[in-house]
């Protein structure tokens, strides 16, 4: 990939981060930490990899994206708006009454393929889409973003077993391994490591990458296309709250709104990347 495209993707990721914080601060409600950790992955998916058409959000042959960690939807909504699924102006309605941009995603929002909010359900749902694709001999792929705290849910592993059993090579899981969850460090709350080994043991082709390195993300997404007969797991090592010094690896910003001063400081820090 040429340098300019990489630069553009990094810029988009930074825009997603800034927009997420603006939305959360405006709504005085929402989850900043996970939006900041997944921003690079979303930029790579929506502005490089996914075969989608924002003018035809229900296009049958589109690639699907399942945001299993539904609370991290500010970044997701920002990416969808920037991609043209709905007006960017609508981001102002996030978490407000009568809005299409609910606190956790709903199917009525253009571009949304999965209504998340309850952890551990996205992979099960994605398996269904992937199986349907196989039955109908369609060549779309299903990308799923899950959290590391979310991986404590047993249903994730039920689904992992099934994806491998049904040889769903049209399924690409991405683990936003941001190390922190609501009440503390994941390794302290309930350790999920060694995560790559667990996924390998469940029959996945596993890639272990730096989830904030755009070049690595883009490369691994392309590499994933050549894997056959087994599902994929990209373990993206990330930092919760990435890009804002006082939010990084700080569990308090899982679901806490920055106050006015913190918001100002956060925006200043992110603007330095422009």
């Amino acid at each position, binding site marked *: 990939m040429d340098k300019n495209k990489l630069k553009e993707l990094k810029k988009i990721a930074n825009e997603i981060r800034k927009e997420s914080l603006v939305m959360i601060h405006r709504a005085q409600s929402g989850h900043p930490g996970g939006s900041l950790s997944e921003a690079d992955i979303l930029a790579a998916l929506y502005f490089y990899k996914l075969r989608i058409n924002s003018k035809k959000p229900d296009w049958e042959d589109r690639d699907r994206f399942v945001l299993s960690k539904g609370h991290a939807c500010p970044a997701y909504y920002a990416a969808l708006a920037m991609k043209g699924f709905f007006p960017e102006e609508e981001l102002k309605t996030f978490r407000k009454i009568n809005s299409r941009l609910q606190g956790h995603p709903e199917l009525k929002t253009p571009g949304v393929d999965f209504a998340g909010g309850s952890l551990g359900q996205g*992979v099960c749902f994605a398996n269904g889409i992937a*199986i349907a694709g196989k039955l109908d001999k369609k060549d779309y792929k299903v990308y799923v973003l899950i959290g590391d705290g979310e991986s404590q849910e047993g249903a994730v592993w039920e689904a992992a077993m099934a994806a491998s059993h049904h040889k769903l090579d049209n399924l690409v899981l991405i683990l936003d391994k941001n190390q922190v969850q609501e009440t503390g460090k994941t390794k302290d709350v309930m350790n999920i490591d060694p995560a790559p080994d667990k996924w390998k043991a469940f029959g996945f082709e596993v890639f272990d990458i730096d989830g904030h390195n755009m070049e690595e993300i883009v490369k691994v997404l392309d590499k994933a296309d050549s894997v056959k007969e087994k599902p994929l797991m990209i373990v993206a090592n990330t930092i919760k709250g990435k890009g804002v010094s006082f939010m990084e690896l700080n569990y308090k910003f899982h679901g806490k709104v920055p106050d006015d001063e913190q918001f100002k400081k956060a925006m200043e820090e992110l603007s330095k990347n422009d």
Partner: protein
Amino acid sequence: MTEAKATREGYGDALAEIAKKNKNVVALDSDLNDSTRSDYIKKIDPSRFISMGIAEQDMIGTAAGLSVSGKIPFASTFAIFSERAFEFVRNIISRNKLNVKIAGSHAGIFTGEDGKSAQAIEDIAIYRALPNMVVIQPCDYIETKKAVHALMAYNGPSYMRLLRNPLPIIHDDNYKFELGKGEVLKKGKDAVIFATGTMVHESLQAAEILKNNNIDVYVVNIHTIKPIDSKLIIDLAKKTNCVITAEDHNIIGGLGSAVAEVLSENYPCIMKRIGLQDCYGESGKPAELYDKYGLNAEHVARTVKEFLKNKK
């Protein structure tokens, strides 16, 4: 003697019929496909049976994913184990109004020897509480087949309660099943019994016993517990002023509650709920259990008699 067949047989046979007609019909099961009879779809197309292993949450999530991809999934297991995936049903299927048909077999103490752990007595209550859900319990083989076809024609989520053991077939092929409509099986004047599932049969027998005591009761089959046939319930309550409900389910949250909800807002009257009196079942033959837990025809007849006596 009337022919007897389990409702789960009707489910399997109807599933095969609709799968033959529509290539988008798929079946999922959590390793109980031999018992729920969802296996029968394999006779039509083995690739449309999706083996989920003993993993009910994953089954429900996968069924939802299939439904947003143009498939018409029928997901089955035992009623009790479907409850393990309740929050998946709530947050993926009911919340999004997805076209997923859930079937829970081996419901009620009618399940018998397997005992408490296998006898779902709260499934109607929990699924009824979910917005968008249709909740059905057919009472015989033919009605089950008709119900599956009706659900196939209906676009939305549903829960169908199925039963393990054979039941007399009281309908014939000309029977017209209508979602949301109660079926008056016997007319009467002194009282009305609204029954569902196995209790339709017990109530019909009870009506015979009562006839010998010069008591003439309506017996109504409520196959659709949600949406419930409010109009019929109000009409017959007005006609008889003596309302009894009968179900092999906890009296809390099931058919009795549904009828009470309708009447309390429209035609308040004293009623009597026959069912499990907020307790679990146990191992035993269905007939023994129905006797011990007050669900057999004799008990239904006695309850109606006492109810009428006390009213006077």
